[in-house]
């Protein structure tokens, strides 16, 4: 392509994007309408406690209350661990919206009621702390606080308190994780449509370059790709995970605003951009993809997009290492 035709194409893409604003607007429901999936019959629902509940619960020992509140503070402002355990611009609340309390927004209490349990991602039985460690290793592009440390205790205490009154070991939970759209990417899903949806609905906050926005050094809108974002091993890189998250949570305050197809398209677009390396990288992205196919079958990592193999690089972002110590297999005899 000559430079000139690239520019023409770029402008055409832009005009198409601005045209699609009107079309999308016309298809969408009223912005204030909250459209969320309906729980399936028999699915368990739990209303997680609020901040006021933590503050007013007479059953809590004052020391425990302090620990839970510390955990909440770390959850809402995880950047206080930047450079030690966190090496990108994310906070726990970036993906677990609404203080980690809300169904359809990655509620955290199910981790406390269903773990220890076997996890397919690492192929062994995980504790609650190990599950939190997973988020630090992948979504936060970092390394977890030590098991049993004050920071880990505070975070797990917040998780467990959010589960107060919830049924143990019931795994049929409404609005758990991100997956209501199913795992199969519809055939109609395209990068080009995703880019239009992105520019029309997401770029205003997350930027045309996906880098998010800071003000006075504080992260306001988290980056969706690039060095400041989640790495190639994060659950959110799975197209179905991102599609379900986006549809129920984005644009902020407008659950259900995008159609299913728009959510799939934009999830594919966002997750076709470069980001820090998967900590499980073998030195070859295609090989890493094959090795962890149980995970990467839902991502485009190690595949060719726009003429490049995604993830074929040594960039770990701000993190000065590839793999955290904590990521290791566990077996029982």
């Amino acid at each position, binding site marked *: 392509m000559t430079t000139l035709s690239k520019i023409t194409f770029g402008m055409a893409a832009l005009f198409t994007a601005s045209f699609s604003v009107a079309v999308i607007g016309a298809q969408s429901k009223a912005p204030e309408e909250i459209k969320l999936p309906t729980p399936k019959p028999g699915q368990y629902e739990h209303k997680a406690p*609020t901040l006021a509940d933590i503050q007013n619960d007479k059953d809590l020992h004052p020391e425990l209350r302090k620990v839970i509140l510390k955990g909440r503070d770390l959850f809402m402002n995880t950047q206080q661990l930047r450079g030690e355990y966190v090496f990108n611009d994310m906070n726990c609340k970036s993906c677990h919206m609404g203080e980690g309390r809300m169904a359809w927004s990655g509620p955290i209490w199910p981790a406390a009621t269903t773990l220890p349990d076997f996890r397919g991602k690492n192929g062994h039985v995980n504790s609650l702390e190990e599950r939190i460690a997973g988020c630090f290793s992948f979504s936060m592009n970092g390394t977890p606080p030590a098991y049993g440390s004050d920071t880990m205790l505070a975070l797990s205490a917040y998780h467990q308190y959010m589960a107060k009154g919830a049924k143990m070991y019931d795994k049929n939970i409404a609005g758990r994780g991100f997956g209501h759209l199913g795992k199969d990417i519809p055939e109609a899903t395209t990068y080009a449509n995703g880019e239009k949806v992105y520019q*029309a609905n997401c770029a205003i906050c997350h930027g045309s370059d996906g880098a998010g926005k800071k003000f006075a050094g504080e992260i306001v809108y988290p980056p969706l790709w690039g060095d400041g974002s989640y790495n190639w091993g994060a659950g959110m890189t799975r197209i179905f995970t991102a599609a379900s998250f986006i549809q129920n949570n984005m*644009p902020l305050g*407008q659950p259900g605003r995008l159609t299913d197809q728009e959510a799939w398209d934009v999830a594919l677009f966002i997750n076709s951009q470069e980001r820090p390396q998967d900590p499980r990288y073998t030195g070859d992205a295609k090989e890493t993809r094959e090795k962890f196919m149980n995970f990467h079958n839902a991502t485009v990592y190690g595949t060719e997009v726009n003429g490049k193999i995604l993830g074929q690089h040594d960039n770990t972002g701000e993190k000065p290492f590839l793999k955290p110590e904590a990521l290791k297999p566990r077996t029982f005899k």
Partner: protein
Amino acid sequence: MKLKPIVMIVASSLLIPSVFAASDAQRGQQLAMQGDGSGAPCLACHGANGEGNAAGAFPMLAGLDEGYLFRTMKAYQDGTRVNPVMSMNIDNFKEQDLLDLAAYFSQLSVPKPSAPSATTELLEAGEKLATLGNWDAYIPPCSSCHGPNNQGVDENFPRIAGQHASYIEQQLKAWQQGQRTSDPVQLMEAIAKRLSDEQIKAVAAYLASQPAQ
């Protein structure tokens, strides 16, 4: 991804008026004193220092983001913001005039907020809503878009800390009534329409009590 940088350049040249560099704050000051030739000058309502007027629900303009001020004045001209007084007093300004006015008001230093007149209960309810939101009703905290301490982020997410409560109340109601549709992706409209009158009063009182920096 070869295409992306070019799209970005084209996009940013459309979003950010390139004539910004040529805006003239001094000329803006003159225009603010003269008006658009057929109405009241800006200073009549917004004050000699851009401090606004709480009693009249005239917003403080001093120190607001330049791009936001320009975008807002354009919105009054194109009808995506409706206010009979503003529309009448601004309709004759040309684009360059608006750029100069935006430059002028954005450069004014921010006045200190007056002592809050609201009750402690109202301020506390407002603080709760503004800083924690009410997620069960899908009302995120103000700062999730308006930035740390609600000091604003850019031309789309203005500073709301220190703004007059009367004006914030009036604008949230304008969103509810469809008289303000200039917000990108209807981000504010969605939230405003979920707020009760009491919540609007509380959040406006709290934000007004907060220092603009």
